[in-house]
């Protein structure tokens, strides 16, 4: 059993009571809600005659269903309009702050909470969305919940939870040039499997992790859930504190210095015990792309689709399904696979540094003929910052569409979707069958720079072979 880890410390601080049956009632420090998983929770709350216990510890935004072409109200899609107006009514009724379209603060929930300084070290963060693991980048314990639990958090600001084990993912050395946090997490999931993390919190540690920016750490923790781990975290350090300083909800003045002391004390102790540890060598990680229908089916850019005999017996069934669905046969090189659509965005890779990395590749080049390529900033703030430095112009000049913020084609609940058997190069997090809005649509997951490289070549391309003209 783990002891002395950040996870243990934060868990202990938030324990309200032990419940019959052995679960723990855990206080939730920050509850994030959005339009898709909250309406039924509010209905249930009202049916039971309950109210929201801590509206001031709850924050709402709209992200999943928003169109990215025109965000004029009412939306063209009446169902989408109904979802947002329901959220607006619920927030108004219960006094919950809503970062709505046009507020300058709207965006994907996992982009805006950090951006506003709401996500802080030592908090417990819950949201009706599995990618809540993102917030672990700050040294928070953050996890996705279902709608019944959203109701419970609204009503009681707490949850019935079971404590997880802790697995340290120790990444030594440094990532190679043009290899990103996305490549790192795809590599980890490829090696530990999509169910390897079930029952664990992943603690990401080591020199390669310490060298990551906050935005890169968010990319990493975002996809812990794709490895089965409900939360992932990085111990807070100066990189964390530097990011938080001056953000709207960050502490100020005397509170800031007290916060620093407390936050620092939460990091995993040198003599802490973890339940498991896995070591990776960062320098050996190549740009990584998925070929199949789970995020664990990844390949280094120089590799070929594996044959069954190269796979563990437990992976063969899903591999056979992936060969059929993806129409990619064993032995096919992943580099060179033609794509139809290129999507840059999502809670995994829709932040400013992601757009910069993609723009570096797009600058001075053009999207290949017949390819649809579009960029969806993660938030209104990201869009504004990107436009201020001219990234929108770089993308437009290169033939990418520049869109309004939202979740977009990561899960295609808005009009952005694949059609028929189209294949996408996507900076999002899931390549499940049908994920991007077409029942037979196909997804190749990769970093934003790799998506941009695929867009300009019309096929999967090692971004390292494209030297940015401005850098040459």
């Amino acid at each position, binding site marked *: 059993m783990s002891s002395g880890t950040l996870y243990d410390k934060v868990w202990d601080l938030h324990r309200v009571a032990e419940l019959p049956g052995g679960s723990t009632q855990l206080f939730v*420090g920050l509850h994030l809600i959005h339009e898709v998983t909250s309406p039924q929770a509010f209905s249930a709350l009202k049916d039971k005659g309950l109210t929201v216990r801590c509206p001031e510890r709850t924050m709402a935004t709209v992200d999943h269903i928003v169109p990215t072409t025109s965000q004029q109200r009412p939306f063209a899609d009446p169902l989408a309009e109904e979802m947002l107006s329901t959220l607006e009514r619920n927030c108004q009724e219960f006094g919950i702050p809503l970062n709505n379209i046009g507020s300058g603060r709207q965006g994907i929930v996992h982009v805006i909470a950090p951006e506003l300084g709401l996500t802080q070290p030592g908090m417990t963060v819950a949201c009706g969305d599995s990618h809540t693991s993102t917030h672990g980048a700050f040294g928070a314990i953050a996890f996705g919940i279902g709608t*019944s639990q959203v109701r*419970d958090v609204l009503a*009681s600001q707490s*949850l019935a939870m079971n404590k997880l084990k802790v697995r340290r993912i120790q990444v030594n050395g440094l990532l190679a040039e043009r290899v990103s946090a996305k490549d790192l997490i795809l590599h980890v999931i490829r090696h530990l499997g999509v169910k390897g993390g079930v029952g664990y919190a992943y603690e990401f540690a080591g020199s390669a992790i310490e060298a990551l920016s906050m935005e890169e750490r968010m990319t990493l923790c975002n996809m812990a859930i794709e490895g089965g781990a409900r939360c992932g975290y990085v111990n807070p350090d100066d990189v964390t504190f530097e990011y938080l300083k001056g953000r709207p909800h960050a502490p100020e003045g005397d509170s800031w210095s007290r916060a620093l002391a407390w936050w620092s004390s939460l990091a995993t102790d040198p003599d802490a015990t973890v339940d498991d540890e896995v070591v990776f060598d960062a320098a050996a990680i190549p740009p990584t792309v998925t070929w199949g229908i789970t995020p664990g089916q990844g390949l280094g850019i120089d590799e070929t689709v594996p044959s069954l005999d190269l796979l563990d017996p*437990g992976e063969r069934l899903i591999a056979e399904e992936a060969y059929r669905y993806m129409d990619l046969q064993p032995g096919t090189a992943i580099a060179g696979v033609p794509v139809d659509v290129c999507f840059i965005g999502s809670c995994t890779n829709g932040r400013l540094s992601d757009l910069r990395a993609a723009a570096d590749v797009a600058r001075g080049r053009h999207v290949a003929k017949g390819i649809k390529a579009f960029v969806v900033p993660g938030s209104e703030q990201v869009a504004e910052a990107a436009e201020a430095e001219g990234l929108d112009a770089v993308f437009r000049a290169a033939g990418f569409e520049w869109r309004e913020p939202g979740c977009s084609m990561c899960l295609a609940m808005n009009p952005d979707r694949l059609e028929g058997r189209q294949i996408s190069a996507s900076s999002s997090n899931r390549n499940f069958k049908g994920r991007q809005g077409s029942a037979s649509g196909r997804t190749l997951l990769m970093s934003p720079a790799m998506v941009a490289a695929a867009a300009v070549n019309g096929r999967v391309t090692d971004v390292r072979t494209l030297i940015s003209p401005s850098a040459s």
Partner: protein
Amino acid sequence: MALFPTGPIQQVSGTAISVPGEDIDTDRIIPARFLKSVSFEALGDQVFADDRLELSGDHPFDQARYQGASILVVNGNFGCGSSREHAPQALMRWGIRAVVGVSFAEIFYGNCLALGIPCATAAPEQIKSIQAQVDREPGRSWTLDLAGLQLASVESSWPVSIDPGPLDMLRSGRWDATSQLLDHGPQVAALMQTLPYINKFAAN
């Protein structure tokens, strides 16, 4: 259609349906486009919509022989991916009252528990045998017995596991956690006094 689960759950009885496959994610159980609704009501008809489309009538949920089943038998890591409670809601509204499999993704498991749907596990070889029996004789009635921790039919019975915590919650009827959580309102208030980030990081 039977009523949704309420109160203590000691057993689930009925015919079974098998959906084989590893890592069946919640996007497959209920594709995202069906989440565009402020209620769960219509989900029963939409469960596995794209997989059913792909198999044009051959998906287990479309086969006449499995209609009316209440016990779903699956393989490993069932329900991975998105946290959408719409997945167990869709299964429940189709008629599923218990799931038996090799392993489950955590959030899905918790979402099932919150609806009073037990998720029981058994070894991979056992699950294969159960799936073969279900496939051979779809009309056979099974009982998932939470007290005896077994899945049994007239001809055979198999040991299954359910973690003690969830098992106790199901059997005692306390699987709907809201009232228990609310009972500790004063303790929540007391804890809030101790948390630095709620108190301007003042030393305790």
